[in-house]
């Protein structure tokens, strides 16, 4: 009996801001320790849902606002273009090592597993098909997406969050300059462009390493591998890899810029923004991955 009542009291107190919540808070204090307690416990759930829905709408509203700002800011290409180029170079160079590293290991593991699953009844060239399609359709874009969600998602959220809490974003505003065209558009475009570029690189490296590795475990010739890779390969597979990376890049940068831009309350707020950005980016990548597979692979 005591448990739910305490929960109710805490939630009511924490949300005493809006009129609706103040009303519920009144309920809580009236019912505290009295016979209406079960009623109070019942109310906790709808109240929680109500809060979550309200919060969701607030976030959605803010996110749409930011999207509008981005679209409006696109006209100021003289401002965002040079910054975008710098940003793309920085992300590209900075991610080169980690992308090649991941791609190499992925290629090798894919090859070893394909070798393990391969049965003598199958022609050897099937290995080429398996390795290439696995990498291009799934592993290349998704692994690059997840790693860059950590790498640039965290960085962008931290950068913009710090700029928010140290009033640097207000300072830009105060100079009549648009934070969208100075800060957000260059980062978002970088995501849309650089993720596909890095994914193409990852696909190529992974395929080459996979090719080399599979030759170490099975007596497959280069001709077999190339034949298998080409036999089932459709040009759409390559586009699909790039389309996925394009969406992942946009999602990561939009989310991390959004959370960073709306950071509150100092260093702790920046920390929260970074965590939120990385977690949300990774979840969205998984959701997008499934959605795109359903929509595009039919």
């Amino acid at each position, binding site marked *: 009996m005591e448990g739910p009542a305490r929960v109710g009291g805490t939630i009511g107190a924490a949300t005493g801001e809006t009129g609706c919540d103040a009303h519920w808070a009144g309920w809580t204090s009236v019912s505290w320790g009295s016979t209406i307690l079960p009623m109070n416990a019942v109310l906790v759930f709808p109240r929680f849902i109500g809060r979550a829905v309200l919060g969701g709408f607030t976030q959605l509203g803010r996110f749409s606002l930011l999207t509008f700002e981005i679209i409006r800011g696109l006209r100021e290409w003289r401002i965002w273009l040079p910054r975008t180029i710098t940003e793309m170079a920085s992300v590209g160079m900075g991610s080169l090592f980690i992308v090649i590293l991941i791609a190499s290991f992925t290629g090798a593991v894919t090859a070893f597993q394909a070798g393990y699953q391969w049965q003598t009844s199958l022609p050897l060239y099937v290995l080429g098909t398996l390795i290439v399609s696995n990498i291009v359709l799934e592993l290349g874009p998704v692994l690059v997406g997840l790693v860059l969600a950590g790498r640039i998602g965290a960085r962008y959220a931290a950068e913009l969050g710090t700029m928010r809490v*140290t009033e*640097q974003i*207000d*300072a830009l505003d*105060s*100079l009549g*300059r648009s934070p969208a065209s100075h800060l957000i558009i260059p980062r978002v475009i970088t995501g849309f462009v650089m993720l596909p570029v890095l994914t193409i690189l990852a696909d190529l490296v992974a395929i080459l390493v996979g090719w080399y590795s599979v030759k170490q475990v099975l007596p497959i010739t280069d001709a077999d591998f190339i034949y298998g890779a080409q036999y089932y390969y459709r040009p759409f597979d390559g586009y699909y890899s790039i389309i996925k990376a394009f969406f992942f890049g946009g999602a990561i940068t939009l989310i991390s810029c959004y959370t960073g831009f709306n950071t509150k309350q100092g260093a702790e707020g920046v920390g929260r923004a970074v965590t939120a950005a990385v977690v949300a980016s990774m979840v969205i990548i998984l959701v997008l991955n499934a959605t795109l597979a359903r929509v595009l692979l039919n």
Partner: protein
Amino acid sequence: MIELIGVHKRFGEQVVLDGVDFDVREGETVALLGASGSGKSVLLKHINGLIHPDAGQVIVDGQNVVTIGRKNLARLRTQIGYVFQNGALFDSMDVFENIRLGLSDETQYTDAEFSQDRVTECLRLVNLPPETAKKFPAELSGGMRKRVGIARAIAGRPKYLLYDEPTSGLDPVNADIIDQLVKQLDNELGVTSVMVTHDVRGAFRVADRLALLSEGTMALQGTQEEFLQSDNPRVREFLERDFHTAPVAA
């Protein structure tokens, strides 16, 4: 001309501005006084629209800042230099880039020679050596950062200047230089300015009029004489306490 009429602002439960009236005439410098936490920075941010009032009007240059729309607000803001209390310098850029961003005119901004000259000029005005341009904000002292913030605000030759405690944290010599600069911009270029300050002596020296913000409202806005002769207890308390502590603070 800057005019605030009946401005209310609260954050959650806390009422910060409770019907503030405030005006600055064309070409005038008004010192805004008030205890720490009285809402001076919040008031200043209303003037260039960084904070929206819950109620009341904010009129700058004949335009209502609250309803003017984002495009006009951006244009108006290029006319309003804002010196942030803690500098708010762009820490990923060097001092040169920081000040150059203050050039709101895009052709001036992209003109390498012009911006170089203007940045050097602004650094000189705030008494910083030209070499400072190559440093990053993290490599500067607190007072230097403050002065770079001032240089950035004046770089675009704005019509209005809002200073949030431009001299706090500066040594007396540099504080004097900044006070002189405020006065000079006012006298020679006809800049209209608001200067938030704790330093009553500096305020008396620089400002044409003073305003005291206390308990969410303007206790008094008027000339130096009106302040010294006022028998408003809030004004008396502030002046006496501050004159008392000023020599210690200096």
